[in-house]
């Protein structure tokens, strides 16, 4: 047979093509791209800048809040980019069409992860630039890079959580459910208002929330963590696995229903 030379398309170009498409569909939907980039900057301007020179946990509010809203920004991108696109792909039956092609499922997932990281990098970079200019936050190049790298590497619990919600919720309810998770979780974890200034209940539940441990990664770059990086990392790995199990169960439930 003439076509026996190559039976499968190479994986890397498929992943690149998937990531590109996922990124384009994110950036072209204003309902996603505008809040993802603008809200963290707006929140920082409203809740952080007015108290820029006050001190919290030994650093200026300008720096502390920049770390907090940096964490919030990455969490939001991860939850929404995964949750909404997965829910849409299911609702529109894009998943069924893709399933009938030679697209490997791993390339579909890898494309989404890469697009999410790229988008999170843009949202986070915009916020950090705003903080450096408007908030007068000065860090060494190494410290900026560490902050960015930790938040991007630590994002996986929110990717798996978004994936789980995307598989459990319908395309219209996914946004609402994700927002109902994102806002209270971020608030109670001290991302909007520093934990010492929140009512006592927040301090009690925060250690059980992934956003709290994620925030620690960011605060640590400003020199104000309340737990060691190792402990935060373990919590985040635990949440990643927990949400992954929920996501995989939801995935197989759908699998039996749609492809059984």
């Amino acid at each position: 047979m003439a076509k026996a030379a190559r039976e499968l398309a190479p994986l890397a170009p498929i992943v690149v093509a998937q990531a590109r498409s996922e990124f384009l569909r994110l950036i072209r939907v204003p309902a996603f791209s505008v809040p993802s980039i603008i809200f963290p900057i707006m929140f920082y301007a409203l809740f952080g800048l007015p108290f820029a020179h006050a001190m919290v946990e030994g650093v200026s509010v300008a720096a502390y809040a920049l770390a907090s809203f940096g964490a919030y920004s990455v969490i939001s991108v991860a939850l929404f980019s995964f949750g909404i696109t997965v829910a849409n792909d299911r609702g529109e039956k894009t998943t069924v069409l893709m399933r009938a092609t030679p697209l490997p499922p791993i390339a579909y997932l890898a494309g989404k992860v890469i697009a999410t990281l790229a988008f999170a990098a843009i949202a986070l970079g915009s916020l950090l630039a705003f903080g450096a200019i408007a908030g007068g936050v000065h860090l060494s190049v190494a410290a900026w890079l560490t902050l960015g790298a930790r938040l991007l590497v630590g994002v996986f619990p929110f990717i798996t959580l978004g994936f789980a919600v995307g598989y459990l919720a319908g395309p219209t309810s996914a946004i609402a459910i994700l927002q109902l998770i994102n806002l209270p979780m971020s608030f109670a974890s001290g991302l909007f208002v520093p934990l010492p200034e929140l009512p006592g209940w927040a301090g009690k539940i925060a250690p059980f929330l992934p956003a709290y441990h994620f925030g620690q990664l960011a605060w640590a770059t400003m020199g104000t963590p309340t737990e060691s990086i190792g402990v935060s990392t373990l919590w985040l790995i635990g949440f990643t696995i927990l949400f992954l199990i929920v996501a995989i169960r939801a995935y197989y439930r759908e699998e039996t229903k749609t492809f059984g």
Partner: protein
Amino acid sequence: METVVEVERASKRFGATLALDRVDLRLSRGEVVALLGPNGAGKTTLVSLVLGLRKANEGTTRTFGMDPRDRRARSRTGVMLQGSGLPNFLRVGEVVDLFRSYYPHPIERAKALEIAGLADKASAMLVTLSGGQLQRLYFALAICGDPEALFLDEPTVGLDVEARRAFWTHLRAFVAGGRTLLLTTHYLEEADAIADRIVVINAGRIVADASPAALKSSVRNKRVSFETDGSLDVQGLPIVRVISSGPRVDVLTDEPEALLRALFARGSSIRNLEVAGATLEEAVVGLTAGGA
């Protein structure tokens, strides 16, 4: 001749419903086969088995001699499904490039768009496409991997007459090069025009499998219509199917002479009698009514 699709005694149940009942289907390379049948007959279920989108409860399905879910088998096929969507905010050319990346031997993007009649739409956002253009895009996606076999489930559903005609022109040109095609459709006259084999399925069973010409001649159904007073009691009459029983009665029969004799013997008053040969559509109706 190489076997492209081989379905052997495949049964598929959804809860208490038996969607496919021991179906056999074999497609050789280069065959153009139309799968016909009423809604709910099992056409889409059968295509899902062939595509590996669903698993048969019993029986086997192979594509190019492989499990249909094998990526190597899928790399040699192109598909159009019913009601599957794509992200709205991508451009036509971007989606075609995305799908081209899935296949080991894709054709050029411009070529795929040209075959599908979308040459001037490469930069159009999906959300701006009409139903006909969207359907042509799905066709471009089905062919962009230069498939040896095409599986199209109701490819022209929802298209107006002109868009349908344009679609069939593109499709006919594409399969003329010796590709294998399996399609499901409601438009019998078009199946007649494109397919060299028609498989009729009803209530999960294959009830006929023949060339369009053989199918027509094998069914001797005639269409008999007339006006009558009072209602027609079909009990005991040689009727295959009642199409309408209003003041004007319209029935299919395989024994028109016997039917008329029986009607006259009953003393029914009959006016404006017409007897006509069955069209392909009526032939198929006659076949699918057999089991009902």
